[in-house]
């Protein structure tokens, strides 16, 4: 899969900082940012960032037969996570985890990762992924 360079640039704050839309009417958060609330249709939305929120793993899949551009990265883990405070749901790469450690409900934290690149000469694409929360003493 190839990203589009202009699109990646245009959407970089969604990728780097998880820019999302918080609805002033129903209070729910839509990721990525849209001008209209995905849940109630209101256009009264404000921009928020989810990059400082931890998240729970709701569900996941392990891709053993990865598509074009991801052949070197197998197995690839993709999950749907729900952020702790905003309760926003997003599809994200799950990283720094062994397949046998994966369990729904585990607490994750966002990290910037190098998700893909356009061959050896093209652009490198950095996106927020999630990893199990680092234990601190």
């Amino acid at each position: 899969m190839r990203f589009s360079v202009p699109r990646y640039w245009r959407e970089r704050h969604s990728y780097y900082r998880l820019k999302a839309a918080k609805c002033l009417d129903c209070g729910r958060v839509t990721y990525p940012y849209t001008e209209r609330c995905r849940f109630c249709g209101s256009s009264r939305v404000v921009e928020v960032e989810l990059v400082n929120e931890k998240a729970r793993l709701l569900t996941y899949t392990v891709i053993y037969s990865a598509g074009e551009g991801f052949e070197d990265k197998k197995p690839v883990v993709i999950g749907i996570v729900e952020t702790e405070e905003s309760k926003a749901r997003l599809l994200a790469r799950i990283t720094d985890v062994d397949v046998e450690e994966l369990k729904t409900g585990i607490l994750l934290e966002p990290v910037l990762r190098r998700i893909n690149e356009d061959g050896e000469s093209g652009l490198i694409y950095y996106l927020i992924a999630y990893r199990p929360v680092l234990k601190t003493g």
Partner: protein
Amino acid sequence: MKPEELVGIVGWGSYIPRYRLPLSEITRVWGFNPEQPRELDVSEKSVAGLDEDSITMGWEAALNALRRAGVNPREIGAVWFGTESKPYAVKPSATVIAEALGITPSTMASDLEFACRAASEAMRISIGAVASGLVKYALVIGSDTAQANPGDVLEYTASSAATAFIIGPSGESAAIFEASYTYVTDTPDFWRRSVSPYPLHGEAFTGEPAYFHHIVGAVKGLMEKTGLKPGDFDYAIFHQPNGKFPVQVARMLGIPPEKVKPGLVTPMIGNSYNSSALIGLSKVLDEAKPGSRILLAPFGSGAGSDAYSIVVTDKVVEKRGRAPRVVDYLARKKIIDYAFYAKSRGLIKRIG
């Protein structure tokens, strides 16, 4: 007043990837003498994952430094990224990190290169920039996914980690610069041409004329400039290409090994190049008592060394708990074999 005294470390933070390659795996695969890792005093090296590079590691170290600093990212007026493993030959790494941390657009940003001491040069530059009032805060990052030719002796220690500092006014700082000094010459101890994926090293040059000569030159210069003596320092942190050199250079300077050990991280993770000495400082700031005086002397091939005298303040205590410590990252580890390492570092070539 000297410029250093107006400036300090407002926030600090590091990052170590979770994967560790025991050096015994390298001796096993290449048929090296199994005693060599012990002679280097390095047991394992940290290895960046498939989705990591110097930008992603630098991002996490910088995020930790920002958390400890507690400053608005938009107040940062310079992002200086020291590395010798830039993901792009041309396109700054500093702007990716600045954008991802919400620092852009009103900031300076660039990548610096001087083998393992580019980030230290950034630290000296930031002292001038903050002391002059040009910027309020500067973000200095040292981050490397160090390369080594497979089967070369460098492969034992070339590792991955990152460290970052928010440099700012001394009144807000966890540690204040007291003095700094730099010593550089043109020395061909280690280099990598632009077309080469791996560095070469001039065997006979790496020790005496490079590492030891420049670090001793910088530290002696600092001591002459300040009147400080080896006994005035509670901690001594040197560039750490292996576990032995820092202890040896300390001995040459009349500094006992117990002052070196707290900042010695290389035995557990290898040589993280631009983060090598700086992660030692990060670990010491995680632990040191207010009032402690730290000698910091990074080194970079080519060659040069900086010496700093840094005094820890009371503010270090409240800032510590705001981000993971170096020991937290040291404790998070997954042992890997040479095959996993080869896959992670792109040493396997597939077709189709």
